[in-house]
């Protein structure tokens, strides 16, 4: 529960920051008291992208591991608590510096813009805390494996371990950036920092980060949703296979964020584009498994014909409806991602607000709606209360508001991006340029969508408070699906993480050794720090 509290405080503050942004960018609103637009943008990005997600994911994962592998031992519990407090202290440190306007470097750091060292140190603690917490979860899984030799471990725990492994490998890049570059530099120990290297290390983590958000949503889709609709998991083996593939192809692809940057050879960028696209395969696997589960269940309930079974699904149950809307919206989100990662197409949309639209579909809709859906059973499950009919209905309304708000905001961002409007910019008429005028109406649409989203957050928090403190007492289940009886047997190799780690490391070495060597070899004079906000 502690994780969930921090997550939702972050949701509220970050959501408020988001609302302020869309209002400012509409050109009809100015921030009071000298608060900077980019300061608000930093709050929004860091709180929602890092804090809400990481804390929620850990709360969910700890609950999931202890539900499927057994209660944590006192030692494992203690490790998780140490992780939690390290993360929380780090969050408080960074948040303070952002609020003091000492760290308006947005969420990707943007060296040589230089933030206060306490900001960097705080974020380091968040990452280190997440390593500790992740270790606590993995230990429980290892204990289960020891107690049950030669058996497949519980699927949900297995997925948690996959996600933590990926997170650990991915954050090594950003940790070395902060520890060896940004911290000594912001403390004044070194004068200059290699910009391109810092960006490359950042993005080596930056893309895996999105899978760190996505995989817990997939856990809900694979394991929880089948149970909620009364069906079975289509195939345990397919689920594990797709998780392994996500782990392998999430890290060595960061260069696709740097396609238009100087200093990296085009061929190496192309190699990483190929590796990026591999992620299409587990995504297709996932789509197949999920819809197979839905169709089988719909037919069990008497659905006939090609699509009639769709009607039989429990649309009135928010535990199904919210994640399902997330899945649906993930389809255009994923398609947009293919455009972004395409070697040449990227040039049209790179750093335009199209990209912002893209990740508001994938993360802020697919992932966040799934987390909302999970909250509606996880919180009452933990607090010994029930999700009442009224709260369920309110949850459905909340989901619809969220989906509509995001559809309005995101589609206008996509169109505006194609027309060339940049991302991460305050309102500007660009010296009265004609093209900038065509952007204005989309910016107003974004403000409308963003306002709906803010209303969605308020309703969600209302439901959360109800579920925590005042809903009727009772038992709410933690839905864990079981595997369909006719599913294929799971090969033991999936549990052998040694094999996967070796492949992962090899791919990272192939994808990064030469570019990084080249970046260092060919490095220009490093940069001194700037503070331009």
């Amino acid at each position, binding site marked *: 529960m502690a994780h969930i509290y921090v997550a939702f405080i972050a949701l509220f503050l970050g959501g408020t920051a988001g609302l302020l942004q869309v209002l400012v960018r509409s050109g009809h609103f100015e921030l009071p008291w000298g608060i900077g637009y*980019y300061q608000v943008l930093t709050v929004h990005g860091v709180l929602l992208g890092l804090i809400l997600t990481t804390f929620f994911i850990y709360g969910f994962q700890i609950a999931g591991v202890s539900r499927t592998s057994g209660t944590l031992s006192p030692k494992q519990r203690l490790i998780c608590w140490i992780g939690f407090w390290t993360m929380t202290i780090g969050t408080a440190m960074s948040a303070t510096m952002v609020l003091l306007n000492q760290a308006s470097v947005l969420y990707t750091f943007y060296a040589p813009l230089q933030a206060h060292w306490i900001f960097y140190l705080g974020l380091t603690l968040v990452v280190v805390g997440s390593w500790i917490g992740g270790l606590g979860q993995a230990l429980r899984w290892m204990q289960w494996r020891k107690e049950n030799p030669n058996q497949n471990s519980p699927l949900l725990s297995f997925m948690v371990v996959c996600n933590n492994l990926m997170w650990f490998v991915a954050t090594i890049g950003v940790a070395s950036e902060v520890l060896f570059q940004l911290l000594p530099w912001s403390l004044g120990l070194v004068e200059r920092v290699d910009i391109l290297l810092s960006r490359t290390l950042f993005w080596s983590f930056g893309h895996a980060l999105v899978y760190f958000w996505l995989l817990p949503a997939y856990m809900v889709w694979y394991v929880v949703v089948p149970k909620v609709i009364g069906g079975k998991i289509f195939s345990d083996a397919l689920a594990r296979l797709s998780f392994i593939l996500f782990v392998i192809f999430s890290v060595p692809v960061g260069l696709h964020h740097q396609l238009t940057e*100087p200093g990296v050879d085009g061929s190496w960028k192309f190699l990483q584009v190929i590796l990026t696209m591999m992620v299409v395969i587990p995504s297709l696997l996932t789509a197949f498994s999920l819809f197979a589960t839905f169709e089988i269940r719909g037919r069990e309930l008497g659905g006939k014909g090609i699509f009639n079974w769709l009607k039989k699904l429990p649309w009135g149950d928010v535990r199904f409806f919210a994640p399902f809307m997330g899945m649906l919206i993930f389809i255009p989100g994923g398609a947009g991602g293919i455009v972004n990662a395409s*070697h040449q197409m990227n040039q049209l949309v790179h750093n335009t607000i199209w990209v912002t639209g893209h990740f508001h579909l994938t993360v802020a809709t697919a992932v966040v709606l799934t987390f909302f859906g999970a909250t509606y059973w996880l919180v009452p499950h933990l607090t010994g209360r029930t999700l009442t009919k009224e709260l369920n209905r309110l949850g459905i309304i909340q989901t619809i508001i969220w989906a509509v708000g995001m559809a309005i905001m995101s589609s206008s961002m996509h169109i505006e991006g194609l027309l*060339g409007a*940049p991302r991460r910019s305050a309102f500007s008429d660009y010296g009265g340029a004609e093209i900038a005028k065509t952007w204005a109406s989309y910016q107003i649409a974004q403000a409308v969508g963003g306002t709906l989203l803010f209303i969605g957050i308020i309703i969600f928090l209302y439901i959360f408070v109800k579920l925590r403190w005042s809903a009727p007492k009772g038992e709410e289940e933690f839905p864990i699906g079981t595997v369909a009886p006719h599913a294929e047997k799971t090969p033991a190799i999936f549990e052998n993480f040694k094999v996967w780690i070796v492949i992962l490391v090899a791919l990272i070495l192939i994808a990064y050794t030469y570019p990084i060597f080249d970046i260092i070899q060919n490095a*220009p*004079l490093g940069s001194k720090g700037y503070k331009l906000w």
Partner: protein
Amino acid sequence: MHLHKYEKYWLTFGVGSLIVFLLITGIMAFHNGSHPPSAKNTINHEKVDEIAPFNNPGVHKVSGKDWDYEVVIVASAFYYNPPELKVPVGSKVKFIATSKDVVHGFEISGTNINMMLEPGYISEYTTTVDKAGDYLIVCNEYCGVGHAQMHSMLKVVDKK
């Protein structure tokens, strides 16, 4: 591991399209030379103003090269030098740009001319401008408080 029959169809179709897609992208990249801007020349960003060609920003007609014009741009917070560019329609133009301080973007709105400018690196992109009109150049990478005010204008004009 045995896959379900439909699963096999689905994956074959999916992976097949992926391969076709990557082949097209790959041929464009390596056969047609259509890589994104990736120049590797470096420069001392603190002395940009003294080093050619950046000591003389602007549009320069060149001869004996694969392109007709070189457009030299120096970006700094929060300004592009020069603030306005004029090139004749139909000419092949090489954009050569760099940053004097922090990371900036160089995006000509509504086109695929889009590159990052990083201190110490020279970014280059060659293209043919084949439609007359005014094109807004914006900074699309956050560079500080004046970020949204950082712009320039490319005028593609009829040949005289």
